Structures are given as structure tokens and as C-alpha cells.
């Protein structure tokens, strides 16, 4: 058995140690908010936080994250109250929504490190996350909006 710390909970799984974290989250732990998009760290749909850093769970073996603090979209907040989630709602970012868990996790990791990102910072942090619906302009605006929300008291 492998013991993982996910969204603040200690969870056990019988998954093989060489299973990508993505599939352990989705199939073994039932956390399907994290999405499969490419399997090769090319699209960002599977982005989660490992010790706070945006991490592609599709290429991260579960054995490598034992003892680390894993956070998924389900654990970003209990009630969609994270500033990034609030900004995403306010600006109506999602279309099909499939990539948005990854976008939100990438954006929240960026803002945790850099509370006032420039457009260039956003380009660098977000270029690994593909959206085929083309929500990029709203993602950019929503990251700036989330930065504002954090400044005005929503910091976490």
C-alpha cells in the first residue's frame, strides 16, 4: 500500500508504484477533477500542486510523491472561494471546461509565487496549458483579476 497526502487527507492506495499520479487520483481515489489530456506533459490538463508547485500528474509516478503535499482542484478550496476560482466565475472563463482544472491549478500556483504577475509572467507560467476552446484572453484577464482579489483581502 502507498500512503499519500492529498488535499490535506492521508489516503491509502494499492496502486502499483509506477502508476502515474494522474491515474491514482482519478481511478483509485475518485478525484476525477484532474484531467487526462496527453499523457506526456504537453497540455497541462492534469496539473496539480505538489508541495505548492504546479506539477503534471500524468508524468509523475505516484512513488515519487509519497510524503509530499498533493493538492488537486477538489482541494483548492472547499467552496470555490479561492481567488482564482472567484475570478474565473466572475469572468466566465470556461467553455467546454475540460482543461480548466489544469488552468486553475497552474494559475493558482503562479499567484502563490508571484502575487502580481505581468502579462509576460502569465505567458511563461501558462504556456504549458492548452485550451482548444480558446479561452486564453479570459484566462489572462482572470489571473489579473485574481491578483486584485488577493490584494484586497482574499490572500491565502
Amino acid at each position, binding site marked *: 500500500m502507498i500512503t499519500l497526502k492529498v488535499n490535506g487527507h492521508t489516503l491509502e492506495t494499492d496502486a502499483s508504484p509506477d502508476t502515474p499520479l494522474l491515474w491514482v487520483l482519478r481511478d483509485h481515489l475518485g478525484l*476525477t477533477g*484532474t*484531467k487526462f*489530456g496527453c499523457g506526456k506533459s504537453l497540455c497541462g*490538463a492534469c496539473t496539480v500542486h505538489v508541495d505548492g508547485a504546479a506539477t503534471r500528474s500524468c508524468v509523475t509516478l505516484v512513488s515519487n510523491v509519497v510524503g509530499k503535499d498533493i493538492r488537486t482542484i477538489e482541494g483548492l478550496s472547499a467552496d470555490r472561494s479561492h481567488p482564482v476560482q472567484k475570478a474565473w*466565475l466572475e469572468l466566465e472563463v470556461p467553455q467546454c471546461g475540460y482543461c*480548466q482544472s489544469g488552468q486553475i491549478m497552474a494559475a493558482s500556483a503562479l499567484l502563490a509565487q508571484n502575487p502580481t504577475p505581468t502579462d509576460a509572467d502569465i505567458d511563461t507560467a501558462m504556456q504549458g496549458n*492548452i485550451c482548444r*476552446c480558446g479561452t*486564453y484572453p479570459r484566462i489572462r484577464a482572470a489571473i489579473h483579476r485574481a491578483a486584485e482579489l488577493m490584494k484586497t483581502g482574499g490572500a491565502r
Partner: protein
Amino acid sequence: MSARNLDHPDAPTALDRREFLKVGALAGGGLVLGISLAGCSKPAELAAKSVAGGQPVAWLKIAGDNTITILVDKSEMGQGVYTALPMLLAEELDVPLKAVKVVAAPAAAPYVNVFLGTMITGGSTSVREAWGKLRTAGAQARAMLVGAAADEWKVDAATLKVADGVVTGPNGQKHTFGELAEAAAKRPVPKDAKPKDPATFTLVGTAQPRVDTPSKLDGSAEFGIDVKLPGMKYAALAQSPVLGGSVKSVDSAAAEKMPGVVKVVTTQSGVAVVADHYWQAHTARDALKVTWDAGPNAHLDTAGIQTGLKAARGTPLSARKDGDAAAALKAARKKVEAAYELPLLAHATMEPMNCTADVRADGCDLYVPTQVQQIAQGTAAAAAGLKPEQVNVHTTLLGGGFGRRLEVDFIPAAVEASKAAGVPVKLIWTREDDMTHDAYRPPAYDTGTAGFDATGALTGVHIKLTSPSITARMFPPVVEGGKMDPFAVEAAANFLYDVPNVAVDYLRHEVGINVGYWRSVSHALNCFVVESFMDEVAHAAGKDPYEFRRALLGKQPRAQKVLDEAASRAGWGQAPAGRHQGIAVMEGYGTYLAQVAEISIEQGKMKIHKITCVVDCGHKVNPGIVDQQISGGIVFGLSAALWGEVTLEGGKVRQSNFDNYRVLRMHQMPELDVHLLDSTEAPGGIGEPSVAVVAPALANAVFAATGKRVRALPLAAAGLA
């Protein structure tokens, strides 16, 4: 699918001819409204049929506890139908959008897309098709609820007021819809209930928040790939690497010994490995030893496909004939001729193909992100050895559609695997499976010929399109007897410019692999050809490309207006030093739009600074969603124009994932200026048209910048991207 022209659909006559609504009582009290089933004229019959498979057939359910449920017959794939369609009903019912619950309709005859003849989410038809039928349904339901109250209170129905789901009488009497639902359900459907005058709308036309947004922010939205059933197993599928190939033999001994593997099943689509968990199935798939019969495509490659299209001969079908283009071109003093080539393209939805099937002896539940519920139902039934009515289709959210989920190629293997394993099975394709087994956008070889007379007037234009037919495979009756595929000549047959002699011809030439409907279908191919060619013609005439177009659009006021507005907003002719502009205009799906691309060339590569897009899509049900779709369509068009190209070698697709099939990313995003005109015209489609205008606007800007005419996409192939 009927051969109806999607660009100019009539009113939904198929429904108008028969009684529109039937009504039935909900068990436990309440109102069910639905379109009449063929051969079923009595409410009782409807009520009986409507609960087949436990899924009520209706648009609307108002329960005694005031719960209002709206069934949406179109798939939510990001284009906002779960919001826009309920808005049409809620407007007529005078209930706020947040008061209604939205659920996916089952596969059933009442939900047939009357533009297309089967349940289809496609062709940018959702709002256009719903505009009449859902508003009428809402008006009828409202009249029945009001009528029930008027009878009880013995007052004239005209004296009652409705707001927020409450009917109020002249003396202040009040009833909620829920309280009235049972009595309303016993009333006949009013034939004279008229939908509201659009001028009086209070909900429709406002940028209501999408009902699906919250669930897409916390991981709770359920896509097909997220379905979980008790006892469910997972499957991975090995498919022939050569398109059209099949399994010759399989040695599954090693795979069957791998951890978690439950069963290996040879299906009509390839070899499915069923395991306790997906990663186990995926890993065991690599241990299969499959010998493939490559089939007829073992030597197919891209160059051969393009050569074949170019060399295709035969008598083309006429899609448009004004005057005598051949004679005008023969008599012309000056001619312009050009040929254009379009590549195969993949859809690359973010959610790879997947399907969950639960096959039992007496039925099957299918959980599937699909754009075609009835075709999915029939396909699953055939694979399971059941009757279609024994298959319940549960439409999940779609992680992108773009036409890919009009295909049902990912369904049979899930059904066959579930049947063989005796448990529910979720089959998931990898990105590589998806990229290498798509139904690709058709390639094309197209030509334009134009002629000027001695006075310099443009007297004739001939566009000849050569491409394979999607519809011939998907809906063969439409093209039976050599008839035109209407989905091959869009944005060409409706040639907008006022030229006395116009011919648009289409030659069908098959290329050996399946081609599919891809967001904006042939608009994307033909708009590139027509708008690139008209740019060439403008330059040959020594005219400014905007002014030249404008002068020929005098009889197309909506097209002329979007062109003018786009030129004005983009500052046409006033680009900063070093920047260059290209322009293009189109009518598609009843929507008119023009785009101006502003670019510069830096070290031989194109940098896109800004895309200006002006749209007249008639009435906007939800302007926020329209903006999303137009903007998103431009991004989709940019990816295709810059890099989109699927190539074949030995019948195998060379592209496999997002490293070698590039799509636009955040840092490559130009500035967008999307402007939606106010309009009281009937709603036009908004999911697709903006995709098509991007490539010609860009290619025309490249010509303005370099004097080099790009006649083959993608632009990367010309070294520009």
C-alpha cells in the same frame, strides 16, 4: 440528415405541420410538456412512452414542489447550450434562469434536430433550431399554467400576471407554478399561444452567467471520462496503426498475465484490454502481440492524396450558376487564375475519445460524450446485439466536440468489451489513439479563375472545388444518385460578390480514408479559397482589397456592414510602420462576419499582433456566450492556419500528440477585438463561423507584408510560422 441548406434554413416546418406539443401528467403531480411522438396522439400514450427507460420525454417538467427541470436536446460541448436553450424557455415562462434545473435529454424521436433529421448537435444549429420550438413550448406551458389559475379563480386569464414562477390574480391571489402544475397538465395544449415579441424580452439578450460554470471550477463537472459505475472496469484499445486496417491475429498470453487484467477482447475496432484500473489496461495493451491486416491503405501517403485531388477528372456538380461564367472568362481581356491546397486536419478535442458501456442481457446503458445520441444508440445496439430502444444514452458533458463527436467509432469497442466481460466498462483512448484515428478534415485542391472585360470590370468568376465528401459516408441518402454534398460547398455556393457571371463547381474525389465534419466544415476550406482569391483579384485590378470587396457588396448590406465596421475598427490602411493588414468576409450559418488581421514579419516569421472581428449574428440569446464562441473560434482558426496539418506515410498518421500537432498557446495569443453588432434579424449560428475567416485574413496580410501569396495551408509550411 436532410439536405437542407444550413445557411438559409426555413422555419422549422417539419414541426409546424403537426401538432406541436402534447401534454402529460407527471407521476406524483406535475406538468410534462413534450413534442408529440410520431403516431402517438393522446396524452396518455405520451405519458406511457415518455417514461420508457425511466427517462421522461419532455422539454419541461414542473413538479409539485416548484422544481422546474428543462431537458436540453443538444450536447454541451462548451458552446453554451445548457444556458442558451433554457433561457428561451425561461423567458417565456417568466422564471429566472437560476430557478431551473438543466438535464440532458435522452435519445428519442421528439428531440430530432429538425434542420438535420436526427439528434445532432452540429452545424451551429442549436439556437437557430430552438428559437421557434422552445419559445413556443414555453409560451404554451405558460398559457396552460395561467389558464389553470384563471379557471380556479374564475377570472379572465388576461388579468393575471406572471413573475418569478408565481401567477398573481387581480385580487392578489397567488399560486406558484408547482401548485398549478397538476391542473395545468389536464388542460389541452393551446394552439394560439404565441411566443413573446423579442422587443419585450427581459432575459433573452442578456449576458446571463452560464449554468455550467461553477461545476467547471471545482472538478465536479462530469465529462464522459469521469463516469464511474459500480463494478466498472477500464479498457484500453489497440487499433490498426494503418487507417482502415484490421486485426489478423492476436497473441494476448502475456497481456492476460499482467496485473489487474480481467479480459482481452477482440472487437470490430481492435483489441481491447479490460482491467481493474485504467493504467493497468494501458500497460497491458503494450504487451499485446497483434498482427494487423493493413488493408487497402498500406501505401497511402499525403503526397499521393494531394496529387490525386489535383489530377481528379470528371464532371463536377454545379453549386452555383449565375449567367455564363465560361463565356465571360473566354471573352475576358485579363484573367486571374490560382490554385489552393488544404491539408487534412485533426480535431484534437481536449478530452480524448471515451465511452462507458454497461451491457446486460436485456439492455445497455451508454454514458458517452456524443453529438449524435440516436446514432450512438443504434451503433451501441448493433454492437451489443440489442434493439436501439434497449439502449439508454446518457449524454455527459463533452470536453470539446468540434465535430469529432459526431463520429461513433469509439463506441462499439466499449460495448463489446462490456458484453464480453459482463461488467460495465469505460474505454479510454490515449491522445495518440485520438490523433492517429480521427476522421480528419477533408483535404482539397481548389481553383479560382476570374476575368475582367476591356473596361476593367470583373465580369466572371469560376470557383472549382475538389475534395472528398463527408456526407457520403455519414449520411449517404443525402448524396444518393450523385447529388451534391451541401457540406462541401459552404462559403462558396453563397458567393457574396455582385459579379454578373459566377460558377461554383464541386468535384467529389475520395482519398481512401474517412474524412469528418470539423468545426465550420467546408466554410473553413472554401472561405480560405474564395477570400484569398478575391484578394488576388483585387490586387490584379489595382484596387485596395477592402475597397474592392466593398464595391461588390452593394447588394449584401449585412456583409458590407460587417466589412465596413471591421475596416473601421481595425484602422484599415493606417497600420503602424512595419505592420500589415489582411481582410476577409463571410456569411455562414446565417451569420455575417469580417476579420482584419494585423501582422508583421520578423526574421522571416509572421507575428500576429491583432485580429479584429465584427459579427452580425442576428438576435443574440446570450451575448456573453456569443463573445466566447467568436473569440474561441478565432483561436481554433489560428491553430489550424498556423500549424494544422495531418500527414500520412504508409497509411499511418505521423502526428501523434501536441508536440507534433501544434495548437495555439497562451504566449502566442494575439490581441482580439471582437465586436458584436446589434441586430433584430433571426439568430445565426455562432459556434463555427469565426473559425473560417482567420486563415484568409492572415494569408492576405502576408501578401500585404511580403508580396508573397500563400496558396497552401498551413502557414508554417511556407516557413511563416
